[in-house]
């Protein structure tokens, strides 16, 4: 029974809860059991930074509260109360989103032990829908990274192959939904942090239109690029979650006034017979070819072919300015990072580290705190951003980057004049081995993972990544990404739902039918990795 429950999609689980076939307490307990069976044991009892022997998708498991909320939902259902469609369906939350009653760390030593006195808007909306929160998921520190290896609390492993990265920054949320630890999760996407992990873990991830989901209570990385979005195994599930957390929030000045409705209906309509007929799909020439793994290209082409067969009009589209997007992104993102992370100074909350020699001044305490609290990637980006904003460099760096941003927006605008949606592979490669990117030598190697996802963040337009099958050469998941004009998120659920149905039919089932036995793999890895012999797995 337990195994069955965790394999249910959120929509299926919601139906079974509504039909009283199972209780929310059973559902939550099944997922908690799955987490304990797959997340592993602490590798070093004395230090959290070693991580855990298994997936290590969760930084905090919220057992008691999740079961309490589930029990309340069950009781309410017994009393015949009207409940939200997803009431009682458990969810995992990226540990970049503040939560009352659970620690929030941003996977940084800077916030280790910090408890937020307030809830983010999305967390409040989860509570309002009465969705039990299973816990907080791992990420690259302050969401900076594409592998989740930059977490201060150990790497998260890819459920398809525990020696590989789960993508990042939201590797924890993606690994959790891909491995049946949770049917749903929340992520955040600044340059691909929802979509790239979704692609390499065979799950679905959506970066909504900028402003579609409130950022209030989401620890800021780069404010003009950050967006909260859903992670799930199916397109419909992401649509359902988007409807829960989306919509206007007066506490976020950049929040759109559009209501977050019609997404689930769009996903269902797209999956219906003939749902893709006449849809104009633009293949981005600039996001294929060189630098893209052969198997990724192959699955991508096949997916496009399925769309064509289903009646979509497929055209090729040029976006000449996308080649500048990565450079512009790293300047804008790091500039905003340098300012957003200034508040972590040891004065008001979180870590405070005193200088070794005991000579205390405010500057020295701030410096010691930031030196000890931040990891190398956070420092690298803070330094880069500080430099880019400095007098005399601003115009050349930040100013030029903003101009590129405008050019990228123009490319999108031109492309959407002839196309309803654009399509590309989500990530140039499948999941690569943990420790294989030496960013100390060349951080650009890691940054290139985001080449296909970054343009949408720069332009504020929405995008969805969904599984396109397994690459023939390594048997690992490949993601395909659709992009739509701003505020046309529903269109993504429509085409995403459509392609998902076609692929499921073509492959004889969903991608996760091929997922290896994660429980067993974790057990094997734990057996092989007696404490003290962990380096082999991490590097």
């Amino acid at each position, binding site marked *: 029974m337990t195994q069955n429950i965790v394999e249910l999609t959120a929509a299926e689980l919601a139906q079974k809860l509504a039909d009283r076939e199972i209780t929310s307490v059973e559902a939550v307990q099944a997922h908690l059991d799955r987490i304990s069976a797959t997340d592993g044991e602490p590798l070093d009892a004395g230090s959290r930074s070693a991580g855990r022997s298994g997936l290590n998708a969760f930084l905090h498991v919220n057992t008691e509260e999740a079961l309490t909320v589930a029990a309340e939902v069950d009781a309410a259902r017994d009393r015949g109360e009207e409940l939200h469609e997803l009431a009682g369906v458990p969810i995992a939350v990226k540990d970049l989103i503040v939560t009352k009653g659970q620690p*929030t760390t941003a996977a940084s030593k800077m916030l280790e032990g910090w408890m*937020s006195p*307030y809830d983010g808007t999305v967390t409040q909306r989860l509570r309002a829908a009465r969705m039990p929160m299973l816990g907080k998921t791992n990420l690259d520190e302050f969401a900076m990274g594409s592998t989740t290896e930059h977490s201060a609390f150990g790497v998260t492993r890819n459920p398809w192959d525990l020696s590989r990265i789960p993508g990042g920054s939201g590797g924890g949320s993606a690994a959790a939904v891909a491995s049946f630890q949770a049917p749903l999760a929340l992520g955040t996407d600044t340059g691909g942090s929802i979509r790239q992990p979704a692609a390499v873990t065979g799950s679905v991830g959506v970066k909504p239109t900028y402003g579609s989901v409130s950022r209030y209570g989401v620890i800021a990385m780069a404010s003009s690029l950050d967006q909260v979005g859903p992670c799930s195994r199916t397109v419909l599930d992401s649509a359902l979650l988007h409807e829960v957390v989306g919509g206007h929030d007066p506490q976020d*000045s950049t929040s759109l006034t559009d209501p977050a409705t019609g997404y689930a209906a769009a996903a269902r309509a797209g999956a219906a017979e003939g749902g893709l007929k006449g849809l104009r799909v633009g293949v981005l020439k600039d996001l294929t070819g060189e630098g893209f793994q052969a198997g990724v290209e192959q699955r991508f082409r096949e997916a496009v072919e399925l769309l064509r067969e289903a009646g979509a009009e497929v055209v090729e589209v040029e976006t000449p300015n996308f080649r500048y997007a990565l450079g512009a992104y790293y300047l804008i993102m790091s500039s905003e990072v340098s*300012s957003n992370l200034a*508040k972590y*100074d040891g004065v*008001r*909350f979180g870590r405070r580290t005193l200088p070794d020699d005991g000579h205390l001044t405010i500057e020295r305490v701030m410096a010691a705190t930031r030196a000890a609290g931040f990891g190398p990637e956070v420092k690298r980006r803070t330094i880069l951003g500080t430099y880019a*904003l400095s007098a005399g460099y601003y115009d050349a760096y930040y100013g030029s980057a903003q101009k590129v941003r405008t050019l990228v927006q123009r490319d999108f605008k031109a492309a959407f004049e002839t196309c309803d949606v654009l399509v590309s592979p989500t990530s140039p490669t499948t999941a690569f081995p943990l420790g294989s990117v030496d960013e100390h030598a060349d951080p650009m190697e890691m940054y290139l993972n985001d080449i296909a996802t970054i343009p949408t963040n720069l332009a504020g337009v929405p995008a969805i990544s969904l599984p396109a099958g397994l690459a023939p050469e390594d048997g690992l998941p490949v993601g395909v990404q659709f992009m739509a004009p701003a505020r046309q998120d529903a269109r993504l659920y429509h085409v995403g739902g459509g392609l998902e149905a076609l692929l499921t039919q073509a492959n004889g089932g969903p991608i996760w039918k091929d997922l290896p036995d994660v429980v067993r793999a974790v057990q094997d890895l734990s057996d092989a990795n007696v404490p003290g012999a962990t380096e082999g797995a991490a590097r």
Partner: protein
Amino acid sequence: MSDATLSFEEAMENFDPVLGFEVHVELNTKTKMFDAAPNEFGDVPNSNTTPVSLGLPGVLPVVNKKAVESAVRLGLALNCSIAPVSHFARKNYFYPDTPKNFQTSQYDEPIAFDGEITIELEDGTPFTIEIERAHMEEDAGKLTHKGGATGRIQGAEFSLVDYNRAGVPLIEIVTKPIVGAGDRAPELARAYVTAIRELVKSLGISDARMERGNVRCDANVSLMPKGAEVFGTRSETKNVNSLRAVERAVRYEIQRHAAVLSSGGSIVQETRHWHEDTRSTTSGRPKSDADDYRYFPEPDLVPVMPDPAWIEQLRAELPEPPAERRKKLKAEWGYSDEEFRDVVNAGVLDEIESTVAAGAGAGAARKWWMGEIARLANVKGVEIAELGVTPAHVVEIESLIGAKTINDKIAKQVIGHIADGEGGPAQIVEARSLAVVSDDGVLITAIDDAMAQMPDVVAKVQGGKVQAVGALIGPVMKATRGQADAGRVRELILEKLGVS
């Protein structure tokens, strides 16, 4: 060690001063600039805070619409253009009074720009000061440095931070360089800050209390050789927080600059701190154009785009400019120049206007507001407006005096009781039985007693020295606890002695 100075007269013989002012006005909005925390002075430290004003992880700012309205109204009153689109920016610097380690402020796109204000020097000479800009920003928290001798951060053992003020809305008004003031520069400085204070008060957008830091002035001073056209290097004297200090600080800096320049030295561009006790400035930190705040557009806020129709509505509803209003009131009330200036300086123009409007005479209104009420406020160390005495009270007191129910002496007592919160004049007179004794019988008994005790005085009066009667009135007034009408007592005594 104090800096060398030249005499002011000597400085003026050789140099022309150029002034510039940055005046920060704290708005009296209910909530802060970017969040819902209350904007209240004097509350328990760190009680007026929310996650936003503490800069906790994940928080976002939202612009206070009332603050925008105040900024637009002030901009209009300063004859500025109002920007159809203006932005906020982040001014990045690490300091513990700034919770986010950046201040959200307007940088290259202020909401109001290119204005002017005509002020009056003491003798009524008008002087027009050009306004460069007025922009919105947030205040910082308040640091209290403990354990040091100076109360400054240098040498302190530890510092306390109060974030109640962090995020309070500010408007910073920046003038263009002011040339041509000559030896009236110190006087002009004071007149300018007075005019700004009066303006924001008349608009009702700030409590404008300098002792609470509602209006804070940074004064820029530079000198150029007489007749020159190229400005000298300036110093910026920070937080000169009283009208008198503004005048003195400008005068001091002119004298200091003159001494440096006359001895062949050059002025360092720097921040100076004004010290009221020594009436001098000391060097703060060097400030140069290389100060790098890494400004960039605030990505968490959208542009401020006030509706043109709304701007026009606010323009139409602006109160009469203070200078015009003063001119009108002075003529109506018939005060002398000196009387009127005293009234303005005491800040009771509004009170007198309301009192006169409610039916009292202008002379009587001035007598009470500038007299007993001002004295009592001074004794209690509060603003006149906070004493609890209203224009309606003054009108009521005047009518009680007119009806001879009380006299001036009792009226002063009544004012004291009003300030103590005992209610209105009539209520107090009743409750405390303060009405003038008008029963001749009671008075005659007291007069008889007095005459019995002072037969010599009685003899004097009867002998023709009528002015000696005062010696008899005193005891009668005492016996009736001051509640007798002294005129009536005099009448009765004279009548009794047959001298009338």
